[in-house]
């Protein structure tokens, strides 16, 4: 509750929260909100490439499909990809960070060196290469993105666990004979949750962005999926005449990612008192 009250006073962060809630609502209610929900796969060749008008506020694409409907229907896919990727990256990265941070010696060294190597590789190129090697599809793209994103969580959780490992309350727990899993999961993890939440929020925005790039380059969603990146890629043949075709899906990406980033940035300032001074 304290977090919410502080969030309400931080205008950019509040704007971020509202955007995220709005996009989530659109994603959930997409099929009911979209004026032409059938336009996921239908085509109406008589109304190809119509500019924005009251009937089609975002115009129509080269198959005569309503772009507003497709932008709305694309929100669900974008959020699904982001949630699955970040969830999978957390499921791998957080336990590794806990183990590497709590243990000493070779186990910790090996985990962290592997993490460093992954962090030193360019995510986008690694994801593109992996997606291609696993034969291009939305599933490959998601797996590739998860493989490139887990090290961020490992790094953060490792640092927090290292810091807490020598804390007095951990000493006390060890003294009364608490088991390692219990110390890690019930006591250290809850103390490390703030930076994880911040990283996950920013990660959701980042993943939507990279997934859009994969879709744009033909390494992600496949037609007739209303994926935003894929739509922009399809629009390139019809420029400059059909300016609306590329513009609106891009704005959807921009607004969504902006929402997650503003929220993540605001949460970092609120949840992490050590960083607050630098603001």
């Amino acid at each position: 509750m304290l977090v919410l009250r502080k969030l309400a006073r931080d205008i950019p962060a509040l704007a971020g929260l509202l955007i995220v809630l709005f996009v989530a609502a659109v994603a959930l209610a997409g099929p009911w909100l979209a004026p032409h929900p059938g336009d996921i796969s239908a085509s109406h060749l008589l109304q190809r490439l119509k500019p924005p008008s009251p009937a089609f506020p975002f115009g129509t694409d080269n198959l005569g499909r309503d772009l507003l409907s497709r932008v709305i229907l694309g929100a669900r896919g974008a959020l699904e990809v982001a949630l699955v990727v970040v969830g999978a990256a957390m499921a791998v990265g957080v336990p590794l960070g806990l183990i590497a941070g709590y243990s000493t010696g070779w186990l910790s060294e090996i985990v962290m060196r592997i993490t460093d190597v992954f962090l030193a590789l360019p995510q986008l190129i690694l994801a593109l290469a992996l997606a291609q090697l696993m034969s291009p599809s939305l599933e490959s793209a998601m797996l590739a993105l998860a493989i490139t994103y887990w090290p961020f969580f490992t790094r953060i959780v490792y640092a927090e666990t290292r810091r807490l490992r020598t804390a007095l309350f951990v000493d006390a727990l060890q003294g009364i004979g608490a088991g390692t899993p219990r110390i890690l999961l019930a006591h250290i993890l809850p103390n490390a949750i703030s930076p994880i939440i911040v990283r996950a929020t920013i990660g959701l925005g980042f993943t939507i962005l990279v997934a859009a790039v994969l879709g744009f380059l033909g390494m992600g969603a496949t037609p007739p999926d209303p994926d935003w990146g894929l739509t922009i890629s399809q629009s390139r043949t019809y420029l400059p005449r059909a300016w609306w075709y590329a513009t609106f899906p891009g704005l959807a990406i921009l607004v969504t990612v902006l929402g997650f980033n503003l929220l993540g940035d605001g949460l970092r300032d609120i949840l992490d008192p050590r960083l607050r001074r630098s603001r």
Partner: protein
Amino acid sequence: MLRFMLRRVLLALPSLFGLLVITFLLIRVVPADPAAALAGDNATPEQIARIRHQYGFDRPLVAQFGLYIVDVAHLDFGESQYSSRPVARDIAERLPATLELTVSALLIGIVLGVPLGVVAAVHHNRWPDFLLRVLSIGGIAVAAFWFAIMLQLLFAMQLEWLPLRGRISDGMIAPAGPTGFLLVDSLLAGRIDAFRDALRHLALPAITLSLGGLATITRFTRAGVLETMQKDFVLYERAVGYPRRRLIWLYVLRNSVVATVTQIGLLFGGLIAGAVVVESIFDWPGIGDYTVQAILTADYKVMLAVTLLIGVIYAVVNIITDLLHGLIDPRLWDQL
């Protein structure tokens, strides 16, 4: 200082070794049949068998890894399917174009980002700060490929102020020079027409690529300046009535740039990766465009070489950044 450098280079070695292991696993273990993958889609079974033997896929994995390291050490990445030329030669020819683009983008980011960061810090928590905060987060949130298309749409297609794609106009003969940077080489050759043409071609891709860096530099400069403003010497100077503008732009800024320098180093690696998308949209004949072609045509040798190259650039830039850091603040030398 020598010890510091040596240690720093030694510390990078395990990472580079890990890079070799990962790229090796990527190309040899992830695809079901690496020989078939390397041979391409139209290969006959005999060709696949020959490649399997030629690359040593019929030998134990450790022996294969040894062969792989020997190849990499000789910069021998084989021949590109896409251009049917040695991959190393393609890369050497395309690298200057990418460096010219990334360095330009970085310069735009620094020249605009540092002053904007100072302005945001000076107006802390008032409207210029809020505006710049939203803009700098927006700079990271915008999809570069979309922004590039929007710039093309407006400045190249509608207004026709700038060229749509490429590095130099078709009829123009690019001046050959020692640096491979068209802007520098054309000036050295005294070709003002070529310089103007190259600059016009560079503008849109460089602006697109600079966005993310500009946002990051603005944010770190702002944070650095805010922290320095809390220092006692600033309070003293203000108390004795030292001109505020001079104080901020000269003394506060100079004491605030350390963190920004680190970020600029980190950014450079990111810019090279960002160039992948930007180059492919603007048909910029660099490494990024080459990478996209390689990925779309499943040209594994090129993918491998490019991933290694970018990994090495990351490592080298990290070392240089640490050295710069040490030069700015010699106390750090003892810490490593």
